[in-house]
């Protein structure tokens, strides 16, 4: 079997972990692939750099907010020195850059499997409101605000607690007017207008992870419920579920959007309805859960990127349990020194 060189970002396996390590572990476990994993890191302290049984080499990248030209040049350098074939970006902030640069990457023989720009924009919270009803899902009462006056009026109607959200990124749970004003200010400063104010709905936090084939179909999907979350709201234990309404809505989402690539649907389920909270255009940090439950979605995505035959089933059992845990390694300074001085290991 020919070696495949795959670069994966998000190898920051910290308290708010990126998906990279789960993606790499999945790729390494697929019997149909022989993967050399390249970690794309933004800091020499990202733990993935030191997990040498998973990440074969690591490279420090310029921030995605830097010049696109510099970012792509770094990827082309990595291609020159490693023979890179496929890139799996896993961080929100990278997606716009990779989507815009997809053609240039493809022209250099670097494969990706990403949503189009139009699909990416579907996730905007404004567009989600329209999309949800087409999928048979609900949206918590939401108001779009562009001033403090709008914000106060919206909070009068929606009440507390409420979520104050940016159009694409950031969400703060607020309990008072001053908290809401602080959140509004932070979002406007970082992401600009408009800001959304959304009612907090009580229910079960359920998610679907999957890969869209780009033609309205699925390359596999799996639903879970978060059983235990950290103080940062990150999953620590979870269980697979078979919620047909949720899975049907996900299939409709793929049909209507012709979504290509990884996605995560974040929802709140109550007895009566399912609320759509967010659509993430990437794998979640708990992606290895799907692999462990029998659906190796990262391997399917890489095969799809290469145009290889891909399994499309979504066969998994309800009741598979996911448990995250912490681990320690001790190593010498060599790798750290190399990463700091050379920008690569």
């Amino acid at each position, binding site marked *: 079997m020919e070696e495949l060189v795959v670069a994966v970002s998000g190898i920051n396996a910290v308290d708010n972990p990126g998906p990279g390590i789960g993606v790499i572990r999945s790729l390494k476990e697929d019997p149909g692939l022989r993967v050399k994993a390249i970690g794309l890191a933004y800091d020499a302290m990202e733990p993935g750099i030191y997990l040498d049984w998973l990440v074969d080499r690591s490279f420090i990248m310029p921030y995605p907010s830097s010049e696109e030209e510099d970012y792509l040049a770094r990827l082309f350098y990595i291609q020159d020195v490693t023979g890179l074939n496929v890139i799996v970006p896993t961080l929100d902030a990278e997606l716009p850059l990779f989507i815009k640069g997809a053609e240039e990457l493809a022209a250099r023989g670097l494969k990706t499997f990403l949503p189009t720009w139009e699909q990416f924009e579907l996730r905007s919270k404004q567009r989600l409101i329209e999309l949800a009803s087409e999928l048979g899902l609900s949206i918590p009462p939401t108001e779009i605000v562009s001033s403090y006056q709008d914000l106060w009026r919206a909070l009068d109607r929606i009440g507390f607690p409420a979520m104050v959200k940016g159009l694409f990124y950031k969400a703060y749970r607020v309990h008072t007017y001053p908290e809401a004003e602080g959140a509004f200010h932070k979002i406007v400063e970082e992401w600009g207008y408009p800001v959304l104010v959304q009612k907090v709905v009580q229910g*079960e936090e*359920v998610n679907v992870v999957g890969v869209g084939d780009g033609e309205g179909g699925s390359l596999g999907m799996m639903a*879970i*419920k978060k*059983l235990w979350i950290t103080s940062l709201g990150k999953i620590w234990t*979870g*269980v*697979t*579920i*078979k*919620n*047909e309404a949720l899975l049907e809505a996900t299939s409709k989402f793929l049909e209507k959007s012709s979504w290509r690539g990884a996605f995560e649907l974040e929802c709140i*389920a109550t*007895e009566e309805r399912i609320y759509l909270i967010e659509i993430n255009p990437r794998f979640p940090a708990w992606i290895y859960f799907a692999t462990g439950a029998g659906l190796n979605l990262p391997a399917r995505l890489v095969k799809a990127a290469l145009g290889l035959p891909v399994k499309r089933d979504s066969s998994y059992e*309800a*009741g598979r349990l996911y448990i995250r845990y912490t681990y320690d390694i001790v190593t010498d300074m060599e790798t750290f020194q190399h990463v700091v001085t050379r920008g690569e290991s």
Partner: protein
Amino acid sequence: MMNKLARLAINDEGFIFDPVTGNSFTTNRVGLWILKQLKEGKEPMQIWQEMTARFEVDPETAERDLTDFIGQLRTYKLL
């Protein structure tokens, strides 16, 4: 009434898993027996009668326990 109960995975130790919601519950030996009767489609009246024969319990206590248990199933939206 039966739809939700039918989907539950129940083991012999009284662990109950709902594959749609991901919720899990535990119950004791009597609760487990009542659940199995409900899953078989029996009515509360019939279960109550069988309960007094099967367990060492007077009819009043059995009725109260059965009513409480069914109330709990409703609270947890299992009925």
